[in-house]
Structures are given as structure tokens and as C-alpha cells.
């Protein structure tokens, strides 16, 4: 899974978010390292929704503009959990080897 997708799923794990909130949350989660822009965000959301990992929670009109909230699907939650376990295992393996190497 690519990092933007992982971070978007992580943002949505806390609850439904609209697009702009996802962008801000992703920046916060990554300590400002990843700044999603609209083109990347919506390409990722389109892919994630096609894969049925996210879905629309609700829609609002705010200042004449459409605001759509997204949420994780059960499949999205499982996928995020699996990806987290995989990354954790990789990180643990790397840490172990670094300790062995005395770094």
C-alpha cells in the first residue's frame, strides 16, 4: 500500500472526515512530512472507494459547496490493521538488526 493511501485510511480510522480535513489530518499524522494536495487525495480516494476500502458517510452543502464525508468500510479497517501489522513487523525486524549491529 502506498503511503498516501495508508495515511488516508489512518485519518479515517478516527472517524468520518471530509476531504479538506483528511488533508490536514494526514499532515498532522505525518508530522508535516506528507502534505497531500487535492489531485493526489482524490486519485487515492477514487482508488480506495473502487477497492471498497472507504465509502461516503454523508454529504453537506457548506457555503454553496458540496462537502462529502468519507468513512472506513469494514474491509478498509481490516486492510489498515493488516498493513499496520506488516509495517510493525518490518520495523521490529529492522530495529532488531540495528541492535545486533550495535548501532
Amino acid at each position, binding site marked *: 500500500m502506498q503511503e498516501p493511501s495508508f495515511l488516508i485510511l489512518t485519518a479515517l480510522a478516527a472517524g468520518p472526515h471530509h*476531504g*479538506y480535513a483528511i*488533508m490536514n489530518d494526514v499532515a498532522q499524522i505525518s508530522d508535516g512530512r506528507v502534505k497531500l*494536495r*487535492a*489531485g*493526489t*487525495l*482524490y*486519485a487515492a*480516494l*477514487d*482508488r480506495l*472507494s*473502487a477497492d*471498497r476500502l*472507504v*465509502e*461516503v*458517510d454523508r454529504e453537506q452543502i*457548506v457555503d454553496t*459547496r*458540496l*462537502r*462529502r464525508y468519507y468513512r472506513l*468500510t469494514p474491509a478498509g479497517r481490516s486492510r489498515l490493521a493488516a498493513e499496520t501489522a506488516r509495517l510493525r513487523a518490518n520495523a521490529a525486524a529492522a530495529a532488531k538488526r540495528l541492535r545486533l549491529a550495535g548501532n
Partner: protein
Amino acid sequence: MAPVGLEICYRRLLRWFPAEHRALYQEEMLGVLMAGAEPGRNRPSRAESADLLLGAARIRLRPGRALCDGPGWRDALAVYSFAAPLLVLISTFIGWLAAELEFTRIGPSGLTMMLTDTGSKALVTAAWVAIGGQGLVVVLALLGLRWWAAAAAAISALYLGVTAILQLYTPLSVGIPISMLYVPFALVAPISETVALLVSPGPRRGRQLMRRRAWALLVAGSAAAAALTRDFGLVLFKAGGESLHRNASLLAGLVVVLLLLALWLSSAHGKRLAFLFGVLAYGLLLMDGFIDESGPWGADTINGAVGQVLVIFLLAAVIYRTWRRSRSAAGGSGQSLT
């Protein structure tokens, strides 16, 4: 309120996204873009413009996405499932007829020879499977028997594919490659027809969708394709030598390309059809040697498998995407974006 000029610029950039994506996300994306815009800015930053353009490219180039999203592609495949075997058969028949009319001057047509005697029983059988298979697909398609037509095309493709692979190791007849067999358009036709018949609503729907202009294009396409068949080429060669054959073939090839271009420019439906018939045209141009038959994209050699594999890959993407879409539609619950 943000400057109007900025919104116009964003809208202009969003036009690079596919229409169906814009219908779903454009207003929402505009809201996000305007909310994130720095105060006082009246043009998008370069990074923002690049991100939007890359996002649009990512979506347009996503494997399978453009191949069968929504009913548009299903309809295009339905038309193809009806029109493609008809086009192959008509063009082969015209080429054969032209050669047969010239029988006294140039001897029997290549097709007649292949269907009767090539010195190899396996080649004769393959030729009958190739031509008979297409004929059967046309008849079954006209009768609206979609699954039977798909089975006929699939069996034909399987037989010819296996024969072609076996021939790579044990030549069926010295000096006669499988592509000479009128394997209608070098396997591309039966394979693509099988896919179209399986994933579309079927040839009956395709026939309903064909208007007068579509029939005119089918006739023109068949005529141009006929000029590219080996039999017709032989007639031209005998009538006026290599230069006439070459020039006429180039002209016919150009007509094929122009017809595809006209189809492409006509409408969104036309674009889909142009893509599908473009796949068929690849096989057609390969048959006439426009594409070096012994080269990496050709049909004769092991290397020729590259081109065939590419076509099979594209078609597999159509099947996979359509299957996933239909599975999602059948099992979907709650609000979905797609």
C-alpha cells in the same frame, strides 16, 4: 470570498480529469482547493497545478479503469461482439471472391488452397476452424445466442492458439507459418470476440445500438480490411506488380486508420469502439505485413508472442475490471463512490 479568477483556473485544470470523475468529484474538489488556497492568490501554484495534472493522469492511466467503467463500455463491447465477426467474415469473403474471380489468371485463392490442401492436415483443419469459427459466431450472434457464440469463439481461439504454439516447436508445414492461415486476424479476432461476448449484454443489444452511420462504417471498414487480406493482395500483385500492391495496401491501411480516427472523434461511445476496433486492426495490419511478422510484434516467431500477449493482457484487464465492477454492484451495500 476567494477570487473568481482562481476558481476559473482550478476548473480549467479539473477539465483534465475524466468526465465521470468530474461528475462525481469536481464540486467537492473545488471546495477543497478553494479552502486550501492561500489568501490573495488568484492563480494556482505550480505545485498545485502539477499535482492536479498528475492526479488526472493517474486516474486516466489506471489499469482497466478506462476499459469498462459503467454501461458505456458494456454497450461498446456489445456492438463489437456483433460487428467484429461480421467485419472479419465480410472482408475475408471479399478478398477470397476477388482472388477466385481472378482464378484463371492467378490460380486458386490462398484461402481455397488452405481450406482444401496445403500438404498438412493440421493446417487444413486450422483453416476450417478459423473461418468456420467466425462464420458460426456470426450466425449465433445474429440469432442472439450470446453464450453459444462466445463458446464458438473461445473454442476457435483455443484451438488456433494451441496449434500456433505447437507450431513454434514442430512446424506444421515447411515454409507456411500459422499466420498464413487466415487465422482471422491472427487470433486477435476470436479472443477479443470471446471477451466482448462474455462481458457485454450481447450481440442482440449491439445490433440494436447500430444506427445507419454505424452500418456505413462497418461496410467501409470491411472494404478497407478486405484490401489488406492476402488474397486481395495477391490479386493486386498479379494485376500491377509490387508497387500497386504496396500503394493499394498503404491506402487501405490509411483508410483503416482514418475510419478509426473518425470513430474516435465522433463521441465518447465512438472512442470506446475505436479502441476495440483498433485492437482488431492490429491483427489486421499484422496479417498484411505492415508489422514485421518476424519482428517483436509480429505473429510468426516466438518473439511474436509479445504482441499477442499484449492484446490478451488488455482484454484480460477488461474481463477483470468488469467482473469486479459487477461483483461490487451485486454485493454492494451502503453508499459507495463508484
